[in-house]
C-alpha cells in the first residue's frame, strides 16, 4: 500500500439525502409489492449444485438479489481437541463478503446464523453414518437481498445432498414478515426493515417434519396459523425445485 496506508482515514458511504424513508404501505387493495410480486408470492429461485470444485459438495442459490454459496467438506477428521464421539459431528459456519451489504462490512453482525443453520440441518442428517468424523458446512453470502437465512439453509441442504451425506430428507426453508395487517412471504431487505414480526420455518416435506420454527415480534394466534400454512406450502414447492435441481445434475453428469 501507499505510504498513507498507516493512518486509515475514517470514511462513510454517501446516502441519499431525503427525509426519513417512508414506511411502505402494504394494505394496497391491489396487493402488489415494490418488486411487483403478490403478498404470497416467492422470488424466483435459481439453484445449482457443484459450484465449487475444491469442495466435496457445493451449491449456489440465487433468490432475487440474495446470492449464497455453500461448500461441504468431509466427512473428515475431527479437530484434535474434540472428545471421542460415536456419532458424526456437523460443523456450520456462515460468513458474509465485505460487499454483501449496503454499507460495507455490516455482514459480520449475523453471528447467530451459524448456530441457527446447525440446528436447522442437524435433525435431517444421519449423523451415525459417519462416526468419529466431522462434516463441515461453510456458507458465504455474496450479496444480501433479504431472507438470507432461509436461503442459506435451503442451499446448505442441497450442498449436503451434492456431497452425498446421508439425510432423511431435503430441508427447505422459507421466511415470512408481518408488516402491519399484511403477511408477506420471502421478504426483501426493505420489507424486513419494516416488519413488526417475522416467522421462519424449516421443513422436510417428504416426512412432513419441521426441523425449526422461529417466531419473532408481534403476532396473533390466527396470524401465526395463517403464516405457518403459507410457509409450509412454499417449503413444499421449494423442495420440489431443489429435487429437480439434483435430478438434473444426476441426469447430466459432467465429464471431468
Amino acid at each position, binding site marked *: 500500500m501507499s505510504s498513507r496506508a498507516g493512518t486509515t*482515514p475514517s470514511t462513510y458511504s*454517501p446516502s441519499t*439525502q431525503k427525509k426519513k424513508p417512508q414506511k411502505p404501505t402494504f394494505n394496497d387493495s391491489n396487493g402488489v409489492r415494490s418488486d411487483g410480486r403478490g403478498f404470497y408470492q416467492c422470488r424466483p429461485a435459481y439453484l445449482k449444485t457443484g459450484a*465449487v470444485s475444491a469442495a466435496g459438495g457445493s451449491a449456489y442459490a440465487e433468490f432475487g438479489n440474495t446470492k449464497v*454459496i455453500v461448500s461441504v467438506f468431509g466427512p473428515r477428521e475431527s479437530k484434535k481437541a474434540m472428545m471421542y464421539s460415536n456419532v458424526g459431528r456437523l460443523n456450520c459456519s456462515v460468513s458474509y463478503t465485505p*460487499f454483501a451489504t449496503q454499507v460495507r462490512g455490516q455482514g459480520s453482525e449475523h453471528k447467530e446464523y451459524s448456530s441457527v443453520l446447525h440446528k436447522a440441518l442437524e435433525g435431517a442428517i444421519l449423523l451415525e453414518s459417519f462416526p468419529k468424523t466431522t462434516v463441515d458446512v461453510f456458507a458465504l453470502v455474496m450479496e444480501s437481498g433479504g431472507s438470507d437465512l432461509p436461503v442459506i439453509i435451503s442451499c446448505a441442504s442441497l450442498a449436503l445432498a451434492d456431497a452425498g451425506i446421508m439425510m432423511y430428507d431435503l430441508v427447505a426453508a422459507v421466511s415470512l414478515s408481518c408488516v402491519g395487517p399484511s403477511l408477506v412471504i420471502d421478504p426483501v431487505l426493505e420489507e424486513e426493515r419494516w416488519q413488526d414480526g417475522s416467522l421462519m420455518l424449516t421443513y422436510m416435506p417428504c416426512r412432513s417434519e419441521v426441523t425449526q420454527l422461529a417466531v419473532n415480534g408481534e403476532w396473533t394466534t390466527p396470524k401465526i396459523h395463517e403464516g405457518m400454512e403459507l410457509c409450509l406450502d412454499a417449503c413444499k414447492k421449494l423442495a420440489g425445485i431443489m429435487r429437480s435441481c439434483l435430478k438434473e445434475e444426476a441426469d447430466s453428469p459432467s465429464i471431468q
Partner: protein
Amino acid sequence: MGSSNASGDISADMEIDAFRRLFPVQFYERHFVKSLRPDARTLNSARDTSVALGAVSSANGSALVKIGCTTMLAAIKMEIMTPSTESPDEGNLAIEFHMPPICSPLVRPGRPADAAPVISKQLADTILSAGMINLKELCLVSGKAAWMAYLDICCLDADGALFDAALLSAVAAFSSLRIPVVSLNDEGRVFISEEMEEGKSKREPVNKEQRKLTLSNIPFSLTCVLHKNYILADPNAEEESIIETSVTVVLNSSGQLVSLYKPGGPVLAYTAAIQDCVALTKQRVQELQIILNEAISDMEVD
C-alpha cells in the same frame, strides 16, 4: 494416459490413480516427456478464462472471473473520506484479498489461510505501482472530500494460480466501476444526488462527468511453475502442490514489466527460464486483453 503401460518398472502393475498419488512427480514427468499435462493441456497453455462484469448489485463495480476452476469475485464499494494534508487532491484505494472457508478444504473458519495476506500485499503493490489508476481522479473537492475505493476480492474456488485470477478480477471490477453522482450539503457532507426522482437536483453535482475511471497501463499476470527444464504455465492446485518453484510475471498492456516474483523454491532459475516466462506472459496478456474487452463490450450492450 497411456504412459502407464511402459514395461520394466513398478508402474506397469499399478492402477493409474494409485500411481498418481504415490509417485506424483514421476506421474507428471511421464506426461511432460510427451509435452502434455494430465488435464490434456500443453505445457505452455493456460486454462479457459471467463470474465463477467456487474455480478454484485450492492457494489459500485464488480466482476466474476474464472480461470479453469479457480473463481474470484471482486467488488468495489466507494466511500467518502477527507483527503490527507500531504495530498489534498487525491483519493485512495484499499485492496484486500479474502479466502473464505468455502474456497478450499485447507482453510478453516477462524484460521485465515497463509496465502491470503501474501496475495493481498502483492495485489496492492502491483495495482498501486502499475499506475493503472490516477488517484487524482478520485478527488471530489480538493482538501475536503475524496473517494476511498474499497476493493475486496473473494476467492470462491481455489484451484491454483490465485494471484493471476485475483489480479484479473480486480482489473475487471475497476473497468465495470460506475461512480455515483454526488453533491455537497451545507455541513460539508457528501450525499447522492437524485436527479432521477426530482427532475433536477437542488444542488449542482460535484462530479457530473466523472462517472468512470480512466484505466491506463492495465496490468496482467501469468504464473508459471518450474520443474527441471520444464515450464508449466497457469498451474492448477495439484500442480502447485507438487512443483514448488513458481515465477509470477506482471506486464502492463504495453508490454512493460511491472513486477516479477520468484519466491524461493528448489529450482534456481537461469536467465533463460525467466525470459521464457516473460515471453509466455506476453502472449497471455494479449489473450487476457481480448477476453476483458469482450466482457466490457458485453456489459455496455446490456
